[in-house]
């Protein structure tokens, strides 16, 4: 494996962790949005807030990590993506501001009206942000980003595949969030809420699966290169994702809980790695290969060394944070 491939691997690891943990935080916002009026939605919202509060900022750093690795290890690709997909990227950035601010502020204001307004900010942008991030990924996979950058500002992402990818992002986040919230509700001893999120997890899983299937058809129409490899080299990963997704559906239907979270994580992770395998060796299919986009070797080495350090320092620290929150030692 070349250093450039290793750096791309680092990028994909970051994307996977962001999709699982950051995605679940976005999903929490979606469930907040559809929880109903102040009285009816109070219980799920309280649960969502308690689950998200201690972890969302740490999970958000994966996004920074992805941006930094992309611009350092693959500066040309970063420039091309940014100068082409600036509309959905700017909208995603707007969503990030509204979501973070809305979430942090809403519990600290006095009046119900202010709380509702900030809560709506948080919840709506929790849907908007992953959607636009998904359109960016979909546009890249479609091969709509020219290596030289400055692609069309709209037609590159307002297409079936990018829009469907946006929907997949939203649905998979909702799916992960609901699964995590099942366990958080159970830990809080709220069996009713556990059921509530189990039903929603089932619905989101079905929806995410349907979007993913539709995405495969859109891929066939819009992105032949990626489709061909996805159904060839990427097939085992697609099958893995599908099998895990089905297993989750069956377990949810049967009321089983054990192993649900890892299975749900693998559903999403396999999808992301399947996309990576399908794109290989392109970073921007089919105009920019990983090796051509890569920074000089010493920079790639730095990125890989920094990732190694992060694996030693950050991952255990994240583990500690998750453990402490799961044992209710850290929380509001």
């Amino acid at each position, binding site marked *: 494996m070349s250093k450039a491939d290793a750096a791309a691997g680092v990028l994909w690891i970051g994307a996977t962790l962001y999709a699982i943990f950051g995605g679940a935080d976005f999903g929490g916002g979606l469930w907040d949005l559809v929880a109903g009026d102040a009285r009816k*939605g109070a*219980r799920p919202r309280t649960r969502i807030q308690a689950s998200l509060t201690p972890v969302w900022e740490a999970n958000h750093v994966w996004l920074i990590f992805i941006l930094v690795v992309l611009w*350092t290890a693959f500066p040309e690709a970063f420039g091309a993506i940014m100068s082409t997909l600036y509309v959905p990227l700017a909208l995603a950035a707007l969503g990030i501001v509204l979501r973070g601010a809305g979430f942090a502020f809403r519990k600290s204001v006095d009046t119900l009206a202010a709380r509702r307004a900030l809560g709506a900010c948080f919840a709506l942008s929790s849907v908007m942000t992953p959607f636009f991030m998904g359109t960016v990924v979909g546009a890249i996979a479609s091969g709509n980003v020219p290596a030289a950058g400055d692609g069309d500002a709209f037609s590159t992402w307002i297409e079936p595949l990018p829009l469907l990818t946006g929907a997949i992002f939203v649905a998979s986040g909702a799916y992960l969030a609901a699964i995590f919230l099942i366990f958080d509700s159970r830990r809080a001893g709220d069996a009713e809420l556990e059921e509530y999120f189990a039903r929603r997890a089932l619905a989101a899983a079905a929806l995410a699966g349907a979007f993913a299937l539709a995405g495969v058809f859109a891929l066939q129409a819009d992105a032949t290169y990626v489709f061909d490899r996805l159904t060839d080299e990427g097939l085992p990963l697609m099958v893995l994702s599908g099998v895990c997704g089905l297993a989750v559906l069956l377990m949810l239907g049967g009321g089983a809980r054990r192993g649900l979270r890892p299975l749900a994580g693998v559903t999403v992770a396999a999808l992301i790695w399947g996309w990576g395998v399908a794109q290989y060796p392109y970073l921007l299919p089919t105009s920019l290969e990983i090796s051509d986009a890569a920074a000089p070797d010493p920079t790639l080495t730095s990125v890989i060394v920094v990732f190694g350090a992060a694996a030693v320092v950050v991952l255990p620290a994240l583990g500690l944070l998750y453990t402490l929150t799961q044992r209710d030692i850290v929380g509001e």
Partner: protein
Amino acid sequence: MAGLGALPLAASESNLLAARELMAFTLGFHIVLACIGVAFPALVLTANYLGLRRGDPDAMRLARRWSKVAAVTFATGAVTGTVLSFEFGLLWPEFMARFGDAFGIAFAIEGIFFFIEAIFLAIYIYGWKRLGGWAHFWSGVPMLVSGIGGAFSVVTANAWMNTPQGFTLDAAGRVVDTEPLQVLFSPAWSYEVPHMILAAYMVTGFLFASVYAVGMLRGRRDRHHRLGLLIPLTLACLATPVQIFVGDVAAREVADDQPAKFAGFECIEETGPNQTEYLGGICTDDGVKGAIGIPGLDSLLVGFSTDTVVTGLEDVPPDERPPANTLLHLSFDTMVGIGFGLLALAAWLAISWWRRRDIPRSAWFLRAVAISGGAAIVAVWCGWIVTEVGRQPWIVNGFMRTEEAVTEAEGIWFVFAGVIGLYAALGATAILVLRGMARRWREQGEAGEAETPYGPSAAIR
């Protein structure tokens, strides 16, 4: 063809201004929150330490409340910082495409510090109830390190833009080789990094102290307020003299490393010895108008002798001179002026403390502290204007012009207008939220924090 070539240039000139204004505005907003992020751990851990060590309930209460304040400012800083990361690419795609492989190295390291900061901040602020005493205190210590490490990585990236090195370009201007350590430790890092970390401690310390000074001026002179004033103020006052020293060294180094920037903010037209130091005034082509001039002082400050030759703008090619020298000059003077004002404040506190172990009795002292936080922020803004505007027309000093780096996307002015509106709302809401928290604490003590976002709760009125 000439006509076709001219059109995008005109568009990119307008874009250049819009993109620079947008970047400056969002950076100016974020830097205040970033300062709190860097220095808050020292503040809260000092209060926490005093509380634990001396069994002081007032100090413990301050530490607890400051953590809640930090939860709000960190969240705001996390999102405004993310916006900056996006802006690097959205506004300066050519810069990132060409130099990301060098410029990015420091940011890659920054990622680790951001994680550590976010993780241990969460453990610390949400660990008050169930993590006991010293275990809880130690859970906050990694934040202290990551705050400084994070500041190092971000500021050293900026230092590299000022004194770029550690890369090889091919004929087409593409980076073909890098030396990461050379990139990380470019000449300017050694003065920019300590200057900014100390600035962060000053901004945070004076800002937190100013809140309690206002409270004391309104008659709330209990021990809680006194301690709330003294802990941050002491920290800031300790940083101030060191900062003046570091700033002095930095100016000398800038004269050496970045002579055009130095000539710009000192309004030096002609190269030569015996340069006059101008305080205030307006820079024009025929000298500085309306300034207090001290003959020879500029040379003396740069080289400890009036014979020191200082480069003037005449030796910088016209198209490489920094724009708006009056802005640079006044920004620099304002920063230095505020620095000395804060040093006087620190001396006032030190003398009073030395004489009678108390803060000065005069209400003027509290008034001065009350404005010190805002003043420190203005000084930081001025410093960044000097650094960034003073480097123009370059984005990578001597290697890439800012106009080559800017995006060709349309509508940046509209985005700028929108961002001003968004950030105005963000800032106003953050301040309202913090004021609301303070009011609740005064009225109801530690109770009253809502547990339910917007469902029925006793706290909802």
